């Protein structure tokens, strides 16, 4: 290996890469964290301060007391989890049908599923509201779970289709020769082997549902069923935007979820992929 290659090989490269990725991902989160420890007047100081001059945890206390933030988080968790599970189930079934079973109208079906995300949500809002109202579902978990599932269906389905397609058919055939049904093959062979795809589709669906604002604002307006993003938006006023308070609320809302997902992913995916793919 040449000197240059030696310099940039192995550990150095990995550390540099890690540093790059971490800075890219973390810096706004870090900024939010720092802001959450400041007071409002510090934000209009010139020149601006990076580290808080007089760090305070007041914003965190205020975030919890000004509104039932934990309750909102609970609502968000319920809605996001339920819709993710539902999305994955429905999408896995649909993706398997499209990827494996020789349907003539495969292309049209795929297009139809994706087409549902080609309309701006703001234009669909009133009819969706009317539908939920006539089903008497307003201000309930289902009011959000059902639309979120549909909103995430295109992404999940397409991701799973492309992953299912990349798994060699022989593995399923082998399983079926051994006595497995089609569905069994799906459950036992295809899904575990596309674990990274399933998990990624799950993350995308979960975070999408977690952050969704428009539907949550309109459909679950009552305080008891409010979700976190809507709750956080309520800390502001017509004439005030308390960055430190809102930053604290954002930290509380995002960081635990993201950390859990990252840890979960390392354990679960690591385990699955090591087993499944041996080339």
């Amino acid at each position, binding site marked *: 290996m040449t000197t240059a290659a030696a310099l940039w090989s192995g550990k150095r490269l990995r550390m540099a890469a890690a540093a790059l990725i971490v800075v890219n991902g973390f810096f706004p989160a870090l900024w939010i964290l720092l802001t959450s420890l400041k007071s409002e007047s510090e934000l209009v100081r010139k020149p601006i301060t990076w580290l808080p001059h007089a760090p305070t945890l007041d914003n965190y206390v205020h975030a919890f007391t000004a509104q039932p933030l934990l309750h909102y988080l609970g609502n968000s968790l319920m809605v996001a989890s339920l819709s993710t599970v539902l999305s994955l189930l429905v999408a896995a079934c649909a993706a398997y049908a499209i990827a494996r079973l020789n349907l003539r109208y495969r292309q049209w079906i795929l297009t139809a599923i994706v087409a549902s995300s080609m309309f701006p949500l703001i234009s669909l809002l*009133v009819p969706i509201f009317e539908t939920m109202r006539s089903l008497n579902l307003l201000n309930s978990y289902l009011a959000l779970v059902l639309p979120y599932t549909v909103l995430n269906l295109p992404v999940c389905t397409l991701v799973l289709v492309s992953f299912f397609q990349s798994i060699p058919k022989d593995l399923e055939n082998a399983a079926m020769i051994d006595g497995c049904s089609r569905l069994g093959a799906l459950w036992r062979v295809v899904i575990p082997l596309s674990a990274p795809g399933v998990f990624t589709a799950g993350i995308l669906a979960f975070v999408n549902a977690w952050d969704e604002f428009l539907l949550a*604002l309109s459909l679950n307006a009552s305080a008891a069923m409010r979700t976190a993003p809507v709750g956080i938006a309520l800390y502001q006023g017509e004439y005030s935007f308390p960055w430190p308070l809102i930053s604290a609320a954002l930290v509380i809302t995002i960081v635990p979820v993201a950390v859990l997902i990252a840890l979960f992913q390392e354990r679960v995916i690591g385990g699955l992929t090591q087993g499944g793919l041996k080339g």
Partner: protein
Amino acid sequence: MKRRTLTQWLSAAVVVAGLSGQAALADTKIRVFSGGQNQRPDLMRKLFDAYQAQNPGTTIEIETGGATSELQRQYLSTVLNAKDTAIDIYMIDIVNPSQYFNAGWLEPLDSYVGGAAALKPYLPVYSQANLVNGKVAALPAFADAMFMYYRKDLLEKHGVKEPKTWDELTAAAKKITEAEKNPSLQGLSIQGAPIEGAVCTFLLPYWSQGKQFNDANGKLTLDKEAATKGLDMWLKMVDAGVLKKNIAEVTTPVTVNEFKAGQVVFAINWGFAWDVFKDAADSQVKGKVGVMPLPAVAGGKSATCVGGWQWAVSAFSKNKPAAAQLVKYMSTPEASKFLAREGSLLPVFQSVYTDADVLKQAPWFKDAANVIIAGQARPISSQYGQVSDVVRTNTNAALARTKTPTEAVNDIEGRLNRVMR
């Protein structure tokens, strides 16, 4: 044995049914959409509790569906377009009654309040804004207007009198900022971002020249020369260093925060700011703040932009009589006095401004009354959404210097001529 039990059960059932029937008759639930933090839902709750005590069987629930006008508009748009019956009363901005009434979303209150005469006791600007097509669209909750806040201490220190015209203000600001030698001290702070407040930024110098934006029928009567002069006035202040160069980025909270941190000499803002400057824990200007009416242009009159919030009954409510009763209660002088005393919310009745109790809590109200009485409401139009958008976008463009004032004014006229006919 069986027969007696049956009769007993039957009679018990009848009694229970009768009781619950009675309870059902008196038991009304009214749901109120009450805006965000700055509309003081906590104080409204106290008023509602008092009403509930006086009217047993009525429960009032507050819904907060959005903290800012934008989010509220979004929520209301959805809910009212779907003709939802869930909410009975809405608190709406002063610019909304015309638009919402014409959209068929508000119930005319005439039959419940005795006709248009019910609006007479209020300040004239609110009587006008809430009377749409001859009907009572809403009743005022509390008032607001734009005031000129200033650093009393700095003016005293440099021997400057309170400016009565914009030219005097420019001179005063320059004198003070030059003497203070503080690079982050701004002369004047206004709102130039494309928010609702920018409509006021456009109208203040325009109105001060004695011009009207539209006639009584809603037709556009824009005096282009005066409008251009108005925008030019702001730009001249930027060139003179009185307004900061990126004034087109400034929103209401930014002005408040900068003034509160002691970085501004003169600031235009709404009534709520007074309490913020006086009471906030991190306020650097406690005891140093004065408030006065807005300056006038040379040879013109002082003009200010009026704000404020109104109570309206939803056209789709299932409890209209009960809701109208509550709205009447919330718009009485007593309610106004309560809000003024407890929250420094500007009253909608002239008499309340001079009430002894109120003045004890908020001495500055004495001067505020004249400001609001002389104040003007933004164009009352059934298409206010579009009017506001056109004016604020073009004002922002002019202040950001992506359009010249002439271009901006031409654009406003071109677009609104079709809309405000």
